[in-house]
């Protein structure tokens, strides 16, 4: 009988398709550590994608593709050597290992003693990933979205819908004996609509969602019609929008996607690479009050079927539910392996990378604020004059100064405790360690977003999720043009 991990690998995608064995992995890791170093790992990736889109009711674009490769990393102290190969032949992988090994000097300190397969669970147990279903079924999603967007209102004059899915197989083998496999499905449907009233200026609406879900999700839970109608509704609302106000005011964020506030205001600043280097506005602030006592923020990579979830991160570490801020007090950072080694901390399962061509770093998964006690209606009623933000575009943060922005795509004036006129897009700005101190009410209506988030950091994009209940911020700067 074969030892357990030899069976695991021969049954795995890479064992079956490329004949990779435990012996191969050990020999590549030995090569990587031949010049010394404290740690080495291999990241094998096979990524298949589909992208189908409709525009002007014509399916104009249909793209499929495959990319595969292996990344080899060697860590020696604070140094990282990295090389990759798009070719899985043994001599090419050995060459990459030798290149990565150049970072280290001196005899190896590591004795390789086999692998243990990392914790097994499945947060996205799909028998059939969307990528494995028929193209006809999937292209039907964009056709339905197009029809629904046009049917919503006669002022809709243009619609575009795109459906993107991927199926990623990964194998991570490390010199500290971790062997992990994962099969990661991901799918997303997005609809963009333009509407116009007579000769007026066109307005755009966008909605989308998905996750690590089966195709069934788009047939029974969040249908193409759902996203299309939401996109069309947003565009129509904007037709009556007035200029956004300018200056500091009370801001109420609606539930769900506005959780991007947390991603920008605190999430990035808590990534441990920045804190190891002490370049974050949150460096050395563990235990300090960085938000109102009403605020508890979690990053959780273990929520079933969510876009930001992973069974194991891209370093083979199981993801976790991590407490970042508890009742306003800073409790923890998000770690990758390098940061956890250098800061002598435990891992949190946040080491992620865009592909085999990229070095892992600490990244968020699904970041959200826990629900509070307030009724969302009471929150709005408590505001004499302010801004209610229902949906956002993107955001960005300067982690060193802590200044962040996020751009409202659907917002309304609050006048005398009532949501009144829609206002045009405006950017909101604040400072990370200060902004959440002004949270004075937290709703009981926590929602996670519908599954569209893409986070960019140092040139690498990864899928993420956010979530938030309705909250009231007593003070925030709104960047409109009206006095």
């Amino acid at each position, binding site marked *: 009988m074969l030892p357990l991990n030899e069976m695991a690998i021969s049954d795995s995608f890479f064992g079956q398709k490329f004949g990779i064995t435990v012996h191969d992995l050990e020999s590549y890791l030995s090569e990587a550590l031949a010049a010394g170093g404290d740690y080495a790992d291999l990241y094998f990736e096979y990524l298949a994608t589909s*992208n*189908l889109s409709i525009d002007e*009711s*014509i*399916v*104009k*674009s*249909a*793209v*499929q*593709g*495959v*990319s*595969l*490769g292996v990344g080899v990393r060697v860590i020696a102290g*604070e*140094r*990282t*050597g990295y*090389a*990759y190969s*798009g070719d899985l032949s043994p001599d090419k992988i050995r060459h*990459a290992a030798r290149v990565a090994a*150049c*970072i280290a000097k001196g005899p190896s300190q590591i004795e390789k003693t086999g692998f243990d397969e990392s914790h097994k669970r499945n947060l996205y147990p799909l028998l059939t990933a969307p990528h494995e279903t028929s*193209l006809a079924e999937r292209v039907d999603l964009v056709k339905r979205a197009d029809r629904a967007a046009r049917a919503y209102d006669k002022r809709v004059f*243009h619609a*575009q819908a795109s459906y993107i899915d991927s199926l990623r197989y990964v194998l991570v083998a490390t010199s500290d004996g971790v062997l992990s496999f994962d099969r990661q499905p991901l799918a997303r449907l997005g609809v963009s609509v*333009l509407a*116009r009233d007579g000769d007026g*200026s*066109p307005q*755009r609406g966008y909605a989308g969602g998905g996750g690590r879900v089966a195709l069934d999700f788009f047939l029974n839970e969040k249908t193409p019609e759902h996203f299309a109608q939401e996109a069309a509704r947003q565009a129509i609302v904007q037709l009556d929008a007035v200029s*956004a106000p*300018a*200056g*500091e005011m009370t801001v109420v964020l609606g539930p769900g996607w506005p959780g991007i506030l947390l991603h920008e205001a605190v999430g990035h600043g808590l990534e441990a690479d920045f804190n190891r*280097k002490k*370049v974050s506005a949150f460096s050395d602030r563990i235990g300090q009050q960085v938000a109102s006592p009403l605020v508890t923020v979690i990053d959780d990579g273990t929520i079933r079927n969510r876009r930001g979830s992973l069974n194991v991160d891209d370093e083979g570490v199981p993801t976790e539910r991590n407490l970042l801020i508890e009742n306003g007090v800073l409790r923890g950072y998000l770690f990758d392996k390098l940061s956890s080694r250098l800061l002598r901390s435990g891992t949190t399962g946040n080491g992620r990378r865009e592909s085999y061509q990229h*070095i892992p770093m600490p990244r968020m998964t699904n970041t959200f604020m826990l629900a509070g006690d307030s009724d969302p209606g009471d929150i709005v009623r408590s505001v004499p004059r302010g801004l209610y933000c229902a949906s956002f*575009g*993107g*955001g*960005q943060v*300067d982690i*060193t*100064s802590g200044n*962040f*922005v996020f*751009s409202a795509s659907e917002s309304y004036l609050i006048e005398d405790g009532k949501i009144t006129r829609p206002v*045009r*897009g*405006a*950017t909101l*700005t604040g400072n990370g360690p200060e902004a959440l101190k002004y949270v004075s009410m937290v709703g009981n209506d926590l929602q996670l977003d519908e599954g569209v988030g893409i986070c960019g950091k140092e040139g690498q994009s990864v899928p993420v999720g956010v979530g938030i209940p309705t909250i009231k911020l007593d003070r925030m*700067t*709104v*960047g*409109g*043009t009206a006095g």
Partner: protein
Amino acid sequence: MIDPELATETIRLALDRGATDAECTLAEGEEFSALVRMRSLETLKDAGSRAAGLRVLVGQRVGSSYTSDLSAEGIRKLVDSAIELAAISSEDPHAGLPDPSELGKLTGDLQLFSADVNTLDTGYRIEQARQTEEAAFATDPRITNSEGASFSAYSGERLFANSRGFLGSYRTSSCSLSATPVAREGEFMERDYWYSSARSYSRIESPAHIGRRAAERTVRRLGARKVATQKVPVIFDPQTARSLLGNIFDAVEGDAIYRQASFLAGKLGERVASENVTIIDDGTLPGLFGTSPFDDEGVPSRRTVVIDRGVLRSYLLNTYTALKLAMKTTGNAARGITGNTGVGHGNLFLEKGERSPDELVRGIRKGLYVTELIGSGVNIVTGDYSRGAAGQWIENGEFAYPVSEITIASTLRRMLMDIESPGSDLEFRSSVASPTLVIREMTISGQ
């Protein structure tokens, strides 16, 4: 080196399988980067990759595919996949390849490749990064930390072929040196960066210059205040002006125009900017990042005047968007490795004026000099503009103090009309370039 036979063979296979037309792109590249942080080497990366892309037409239906597996088996799957996708797409009356009379390439040496980016010794490259960071530390004692300095290099080749007889390839290289210092003073901590990049190592600025500039840009941000909400003139430095030019590109590219998803749609021949504004796209200038012998569907690169003294003269188009608008392609087709082409730019720049940046600042009684913009608050459909900003407050023609945590807002329509004489400081540091720009008035949102 890429084998042209692989592309012609892939196209032949696609035609055999029923494609009526086909386009194949092959690309390969090698990247190197070294990051030095706090005086020691922190990251070294060295690797190469290749990929193939195929787009087929079966009548008026289109399918596209890509692969990183260039084996015979990989190419067979590439072809099968594209053909299969064409079958599920719709008839698009405008789909097609460029007319054969449009195909072609610029001749002569465009200076896109320089072997020097590859031949430098690794130790030397690391030393360049180390000296750059050191120069930043040496500039000011408040530079106490660093996100590092890096040396990176890239070289690669791109080949494009189609079933109408076009076959062309070119090599490119690039090299860059950058530093991101962190400054601290009391409670304030700030970071900024500076960089130099070029197609040849010989044209990179010195480590001493880059490090010093990065440090100066960082320390001048210390002690930033938030100003009151008000309307004032705003000066965009060349870096932030470049991003504004990027917004204008998004508003004149063919896809946004034919969908009427741009505030400049239907404005050809009209005055859309102040007469100080002339914007040109030129893909033919030797040695620059926006230059190429042909675009991503085999049409020669060229020079197009987009806005001439305030009047919108041309959109930027590929074959598809040109056909939709009953116009001619401007040689601006762009795509990654596969798929329908989008629209890209060559070297997109705003023509410089007479006055130095110092003179422009001296001409402002009270206003904002913007050195950083963050966030995505630009709506090309409506032209609404609202972005996070940081920079220097100007009082009586001089920098008074740094500002941050504010937004600046207007509409692109008004901003274009409000551009006063551009500065004399036009420099091609990347494929988009602008001199310093003064915008007559924007809303600052702060306290």
